[in-house]
């Protein structure tokens, strides 16, 4: 019994020792008596870019090179028409090692809706036949739009109001097939232009080659194969788009004193700062916000908001500057359409990068795009083009601003 008591005491002592290991030293503080050195002081400052160092550069994603094509009817943001050129369909089919002619039974044309204004009903997609030699050089709004006339109409697709995304198609049979006839010896190339209508002005973003969801053209044919007894072979010929683009009625250009971001071909802005040594060397930056002043209300496709993105520049090589892929150095914000309020992007980590490394330029790059996979944006694939004020004296709204909130080195008592 006595032995058991002693062991119990030992176990209790060990348990008490284990509990005693838990340290809790936090007690309430009262300044200045219990604040050796003082209190942290937070400062707030606003920097403007190095004058004349900010610029916008175009040509990163060509018109039609993005993951979606734009088509609209009266959308204030932009008036666009989409164009597809389908890969060549052969005049014959090889059956039993012999090229044989075929007859077309029916065809189907399909396009993919990536985004639409879900609040606009009665969306109808019109497919028009265009000359087969359409190319990026010849495709202009002035050249394309007049050709989208009733005489060239292939068919229209009424999109149910409940369908917001996905593939929609039309099937042509009998005499209707003649609208997409590709006579033997003409090269077998079909080009189509896309126009829309709806209950109110709106736009849609359609699939593209870059997005792996461009328009498709399927032909259902019959091949006569003479044999001991004549037999009929039914085949399907599938062709997808080989070229696509969209044309814009009023392409945006950067007016003097502005920074153009987005548009087609897509533009990026580069903004360069010079951190004061007081901040660069010894400050602890707790928040840094890049503030951009829109020159005009930001327009776009309602319910399909564009995303503005800021990335740290890894090396200043002008328009070819490599941009970071590190998520913490990328910040995004969804733009509010119709607003002229200041656009703000949190770039605290970028400023901390500038503090940590002299190798990195004190520069950010701005891109604009539509929503894509989470964390990424689809450049050159949105109706929105933004114009922000620059450091140019001609800027109607003033230059971008970098608002930094920071603490200087804490004055620890020496003692």
């Amino acid at each position, binding site marked *: 019994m006595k032995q058991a008591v002693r062991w119990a005491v030992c176990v209790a002592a060990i348990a*008490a*020792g284990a509990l005693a290991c838990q340290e809790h030293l936090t007690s309430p503080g009262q300044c200045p008596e219990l604040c050796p050195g003082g209190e942290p002081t937070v400062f707030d400052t606003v920097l403007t870019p190095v004058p004349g160092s900010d610029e916008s550069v175009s040509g990163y994603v060509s018109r039609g090179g993005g993951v979606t094509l734009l088509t609209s009817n009266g959308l204030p943001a932009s008036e666009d028409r989409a164009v597809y050129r389908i890969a060549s369909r052969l005049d014959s089919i090889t059956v039993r090692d012999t090229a044989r002619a075929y007859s077309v039974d029916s065809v189907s044309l399909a396009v993919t809706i990536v985004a639409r204004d879900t609040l606009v009903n009665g969306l109808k997609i019109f497919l028009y036949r265009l000359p087969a030699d359409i190319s990026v050089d010849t495709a202009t709004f002035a050249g394309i739009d007049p050709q989208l006339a009733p005489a060239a109409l292939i068919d229209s697709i009424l999109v149910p109001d409940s369908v917001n995304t996905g593939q929609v198609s039309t099937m042509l049979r009998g005499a209707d097939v003649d609208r997409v006839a590709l006579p033997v010896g003409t090269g077998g190339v079909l080009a189509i232009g896309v126009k829309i209508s709806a209950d109110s002005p709106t736009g849609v973003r359609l699939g593209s080659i870059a997005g792996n969801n461009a328009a498709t053209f399927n032909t259902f044919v019959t091949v006569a194969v003479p044999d001991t007894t004549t037999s009929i072979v039914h085949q399907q010929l599938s062709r997808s788009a080989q070229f696509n683009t969209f044309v814009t009625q009023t392409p945006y250009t950067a007016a003097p004193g502005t920074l153009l971001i987005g548009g087609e071909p897509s533009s990026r802005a580069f903004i360069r700062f010079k951190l004061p040594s007081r901040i660069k060397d010894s400050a602890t930056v707790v928040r840094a916000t890049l503030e951009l002043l829109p020159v005009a209300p930001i327009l776009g496709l309602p319910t399909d908001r564009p995303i503005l993105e800021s990335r740290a520049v890894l090396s200043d090589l002008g328009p070819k500057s490599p941009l970071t892929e590190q998520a913490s150095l990328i910040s995004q914000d969804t733009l509010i359409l119709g607003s002229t309020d200041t656009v703000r992007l949190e770039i605290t980590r970028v400023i901390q990068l500038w503090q940590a490394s002299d190798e990195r330029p004190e520069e950010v790059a701005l891109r604009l795009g539509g929503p894509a996979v989470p964390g990424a944006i689809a450049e050159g694939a949105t109706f929105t083009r933004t114009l922000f004020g620059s450091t140019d004296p001609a800027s109607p709204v003033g230059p971008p601003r970098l608002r930094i909130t920071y603490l200087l080195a804490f004055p*620890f008592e020496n003692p």
Partner: protein
Amino acid sequence: MRRALLLSLGLLVPGVVAAQSSQFGVRGLGAPGRGLTARAVGSAGAFGLFDPESSVNPAALATLPAMTATFTGVQDYRHVENPAGRQSVRESRFPQLAIGGPIKRFPMVLGLSFSNYTSRDFTLASADTIVLRGVPVPVSDTFASRGGLSDLRFAASYRIRDNWIVGGSFHVITGTNRLTSVRAFADPAFQPAHQSSEISYAGVGLDVGMIRSFGPKFSVAAIARTDGRALVDRDSTRVSDVDLPYTFGLGFRWRPSPKLEVATQGIYRTWSGANSDLLAQGGTGSENTYQVAFGGELTPDPRRPFRRPIRFGARYGTLPFPLVPGEQPTEFGVSLGTGARFAQQRAGVDLSLEHVWRSAGDYSERAFLVTVGVSIRP
């Protein structure tokens, strides 16, 4: 079984080398350590000048009968009150490690000890609301310190005659103080600000001590010590130096009966020498301190004095670094302790419980300090 008990008691003393902390150690160099073993703490430090396992008087080393290693740990349960609020805190520390023993065929004892000189272990939390970018933002600040100064002592004592012992020691005073300040914002758009600094100290000191016995019942001990100046580096850059105090101590021990032994001692330190140095660095300065202690040890069986003695005592003193200039903190404590030696006195365990009150103006705290000491004579 005794080994198991010893082991379990050893587990009671985790942590790092430092003494108990105090909000009165926030300023200056921190809360001064006492360099006492659990045995001496049991009588409020009244026997400190006579205790060979403590680091107070090098002359006391001569009373070590054999090579002895001592290991002391403290568990601190403290309740803090100040104008910002009140809070219960706790911590575990090792304030004292010592080893020493006699030299064969020579009346000299050598010793080495590592004890706490000052401790700056604290974490202070406060809250406020500040205006940032035109918007009120609640913030919470945490200021923390870990570390302090430690005292590495090389000591020797020499027994001149049966009733005279003298000793001296060389002290290396060193340590680091890791300071961190964290400001967190209620608005998550603002990242927390973490700032830190490391302050290191280096200095040396010398002391001499004596014990004079007037027969078997009465003895007197005294010490005098100088610690020179501590060089202060902040993040590897010399920033200042601080005068460390002279220390003077006097103690008396009297055995009125075979079962009872009482002692008293007083120690005076000239911490005001650091006042100008601390004020020059923006601190609140420092003041001289004194500590007086009275205590006794009741031995139930005089033939076996190490078998569960009862130790008791009380002490009073001042602390060197005021929170508010001119308002010197004071400290009062009562203590109770006991101990046991076993394995033919080759091992021993001492326990003490001390209740301490400290105050200065609106600032006060009270603490229970559980001190456990393990000594081994291999």
